[in-house]
């Protein structure tokens, strides 16, 4: 358990909402106990530290093992569960169903996305709600892959819940969502596979975990349709040199192609199970 707290940011106050406590909380401030030794985190890389092992002892260009399973939620039209190391997400797809009354008439279908975190997803309680932008990023990553013309006047809802955040959350949510959409039978041009790369000093780390993400100098995330070789979303933040950037992009595209195969085989397995 102790490792979990190693890299915790100390100063961040957690968001507290009104809760039903056993007794009226006279003191509303609680805090997580913190490991005093690792208060100040040592720098992960010194200049020529090439022998560094990643926290989960992967090599720099190696992804975590990916696991997908469809049909995680029975009450949804389609759903998928994805687990990449400690990152665990569930995505449910509802619809196509009637759009909200207030919506204008539309010849093509609408896509509605929402990403939320459980309160226990992050090492410090309630920090997951910091990612408000993920909903619209998920929307933009999927929009281009879905054939919206096939469900005019209606809405498809894609809801994601991050059960545990272990790094690279958004790429996992995007990949998982596209498997869930396929499970729901929504027409798509291709599955969307998404991978991110973190830049730490001179090194490129693919599929970073939370610790690596929190100390990164730059990050690059690609969502793409592997069989069409088309990118639906590319996000770059931080400091990048051109050769680094090119290398990172190639890394991501190669990894997405592999990830796409894993997603496809998961769907094939599910389909053959139904037939039997």
């Amino acid at each position, binding site marked *: 358990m102790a490792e979990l707290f190693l890299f915790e940011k100390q100063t961040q106050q957690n968001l507290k909402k009104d809760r*039903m*406590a056993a007794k009226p909380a006279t*003191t509303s401030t609680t805090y997580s106990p913190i490991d005093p030794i690792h208060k100040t985190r040592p720098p992960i890389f010194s200049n020529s530290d090439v022998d560094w092992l990643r926290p989960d002892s992967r090599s720099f260009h190696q992804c975590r093992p990916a696991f997908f399973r469809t049909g995680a*939620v029975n009450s949804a039209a389609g759903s998928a569960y994805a687990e990449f190391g400690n990152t665990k997400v569930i*995505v449910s797809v509802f619809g196509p169903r009637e759009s909200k009354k207030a919506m204008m008439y539309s010849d093509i279908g609408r896509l509605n996305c929402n990403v939320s975190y*459980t309160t*226990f997803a992050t090492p410090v309680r309630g920090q997951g709600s910091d990612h408000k932008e993920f909903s619209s990023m998920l929307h933009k990553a999927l929009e281009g892959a879905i054939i919206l013309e096939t469900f005019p006047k209606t809405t498809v809802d894609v809801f994601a819940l991050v059960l545990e955040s272990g790094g690279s959350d958004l790429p996992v949510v995007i990949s998982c969502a596209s498997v869930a959409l396929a499970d729901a039978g929504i027409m798509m041009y291709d599955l969307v596979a998404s991978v991110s790369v973190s830049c730490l000093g001179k090194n490129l780390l693919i599929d970073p975990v939370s610790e690596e993400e929190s100390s990164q100098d730059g990050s690059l995330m690609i969502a793409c349709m592997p069989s069409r070789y088309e990118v639906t979303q590319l996000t770059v933040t931080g400091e990048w040199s051109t050769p680094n950037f090119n290398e990172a992009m190639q890394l991501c595209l190669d990894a997405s192609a592999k990830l796409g195969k894993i997603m496809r085989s998961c769907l094939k397995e599910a389909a053959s199970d139904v037939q039997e």
Partner: protein
Amino acid sequence: MGLPNASEDLSAEMEVDAFRRLFPLRYFERHLSESIRPDARPLGRARDTTISLGAVASADGSALAKIGSTTMLAAIKMEVMTPSLESPDEGCVSIDFHMPPICSPIVRPGRPAEAAPVVAKQLSDTILSSGMINLKELSLVSGKAAWMAYLDIYCLDADGALFDAALLSAVAAFSHLQIPVVSLDYDGKIVMVTEEQKEENLENQPVNKDKRKLTLSSIPFSLTCILHKNYILADPTAEEESIMETLVTLVLDSSCQLVSLYKPGGPVLAYTSAVQDCIALTRQRVKELQDILDEAISGMEID
């Protein structure tokens, strides 16, 4: 009132699925008169139930409980608080129940489900009044520091009997809970004790070395039943709950003492005999659930 008769006439020629959608109540009553339910269960039988402990690594205790396809994920995070003046030797338990939009087509983001606050209140009443947790065990330094246990339960798939599944996941999470070892530093703050420090001899000794697990006395278990005419249906699915509206939820503890009985209205009045029948069903169910929980816990110990 031509409808019920009309449905009877039509039932012979209509497809089963269409009949089920058009006349759900008659469809169910036909099954009930044969003492069977559409999912092939006898009236008094609950769905298959599983518990897996330790589903969330970022929490101090967690459990995933499934009753049929109703799925609940409960996790506990321990934080430190200053105890109140009235009870300096007691910690606190805070319980919350969430229904995220993934769990059901009825719930949309920004529009929370009606059922969620009801279940949350029921859960926190049941767990705190059952005496399962001794709040004194959550004390660290009298008057200075105590544990605040944040229990959050997420419904991942809503298919009826939400309270039963939520309570089961909650008690399972408490039995999986491992309290972190902490010590008091010079500023009077509680800090984690790491593995390396345990081996070294430290001047600030851990304050809770032998209090890593809570002693759970009298664990509460529950069963929800539907009352419809003279029938009692144990552990209803979402479909059954939407068609037949009278629910009774009973909570018994492991020694079969009644903790709570909850009947939120509904068109059917519960006669004493019906309540007694429900209690008998719940008694059986408590034994089943106790066995399932014990098995999950012993499975953990082997690992």
